[in-house]
């Protein structure tokens, strides 16, 4: 069973609906035991990292996610799910899960024409090889909504990058059986669904 982690952060049904579209049955769950025992996990999310991390901790889901990651089974992070997988976020100065070394920073631009949040469709520049990206082309566009971005400690974990204003940030990261996108693949049209479809085939290696 594919488990979609429920921590009151965003529209999980959008993710579930998109999964169903590519033939993936899923269960939205807030139960740590269900997460730990799942075959695959999607760790989605929008909103504030600060309250999300607190909710994860209250429900014991933080440990469940790390335990699931350590099992070697495939895990997909989306947006906030990518950010919280790092060690730390500037958003509320919160310690995060630490699955991927690095931290999240807030966009800040001197030029006022660059709006924060970064909202809309932007290009992916593929910089690493990964089975999940086999059907994606360099320059394909995805839908982003975020004010913070990931900065992994090592480039080895950066699979794709995106540029907004003068800032180029990691928009796809991967470490072992964890693959994550800053963009919302469930809202990125047919190309986004292709990524989700790749997740249904991926065994985590």
């Amino acid at each position, binding site marked *: 069973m594919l488990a979609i982690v429920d921590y009151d952060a965003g529209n999980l049904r959008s993710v579930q*609906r998109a999964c169903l579209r590519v033939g993936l049955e899923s269960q939205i769950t807030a139960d740590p035991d269900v997460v730990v025992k799942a075959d695959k996990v999607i760790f989605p999310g929008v*909103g504030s990292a600060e309250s999300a991390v607190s909710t994860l901790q209250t429900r014991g889901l933080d440990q469940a996610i790390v335990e699931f990651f350590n099992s070697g089974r495939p895990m997909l992070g989306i947006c906030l799910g990518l950010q919280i997988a790092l060690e730390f976020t500037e958003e509320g100065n919160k310690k995060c899960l630490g699955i991927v070394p690095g931290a999240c920073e807030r966009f800040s631009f001197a030029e006022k024409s660059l*709006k*924060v949040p970064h909202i*809309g*469709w*932007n290009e992916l520049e593929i910089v690493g090889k990964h089975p999940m990206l086999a059907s994606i082309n360099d320059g394909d566009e995805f839908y982003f909504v*975020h004010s913070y971005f990931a900065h992994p400690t090592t480039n080895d974990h950066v699979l794709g990058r995106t540029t907004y204003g003068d800032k180029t940030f990691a928009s796809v990261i991967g470490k072992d059986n964890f693959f994550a996108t800053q963009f919302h693949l469930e809202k990125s049209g047919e190309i986004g669904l292709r990524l989700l479809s790749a997740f249904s085939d991926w065994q985590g290696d």
Partner: protein
Amino acid sequence: MLSKRIIACLDVRDGNLAKSVKFVDTKDIGDPVSKAKEYYDDGLDELVFYDITASSDKRNIMLDVVEDVARQVYIPLSVGGGIRTVEDANKLLWSGAEKINVNSAAVQRPELVAECAHAIGNQNTVLSMDILKVETNSDFPSGYEIVINGGRTRTGLDALKWALRGEELGAGELVVNSIDADGTRDGYEITLTRMIAESVSIPVIASGGAGKPEHLYEVLTEGQADAALVASMVHYNEYKVSELKQYLNDRGVKVRLRY
């Protein structure tokens, strides 16, 4: 580089697609679900549904429309019209909307913007503003006034002041809808759009008046809008979304062409 967005706005009345001119003379022109799917297949970036159903007993029809669309269309979906509480917003999100547009109710009770931003996130809370051109004076330093209830009620609020207040309350995006331009197809209100886009640090969606591809070009360049809302020009099949995008791309505006 971030693309400029083309957003189609579908006014929905009792479950049917409707279109008005200057907010009156509303006609039913088709099925919103099949239109949404058609635009999605043609590369639309985002959809907005506006519920203009008058009677409250028919309000739930909108939830079914949103649910049907969300099953077929995998781009951001925004819904507005009649949202007065966080509970209304949550019902729509549960049906499949990403973003909530608040309008009249936010003018009457500004805390609604903050409550929605807190409950569903700033990025999902859109403040939609209907704006009328007025004489510039000490009450309306910007020369524009906020109107509500579909353009029927003047509020005495200066449009620029309200836009800034909306940002402060936590709105993640602003829709700038010109009542003067709505349905005229004579072009967007460039002066108004630019004034607001230059003053806030959140994305601005220009609305009202699109009739030709040039209008989109103008508002996305000179008007400094981040996104352009279209309605009549695509609803009546005069232009296809893909044609508009090709036109903008040919003139050097970055848009999403692969989908």
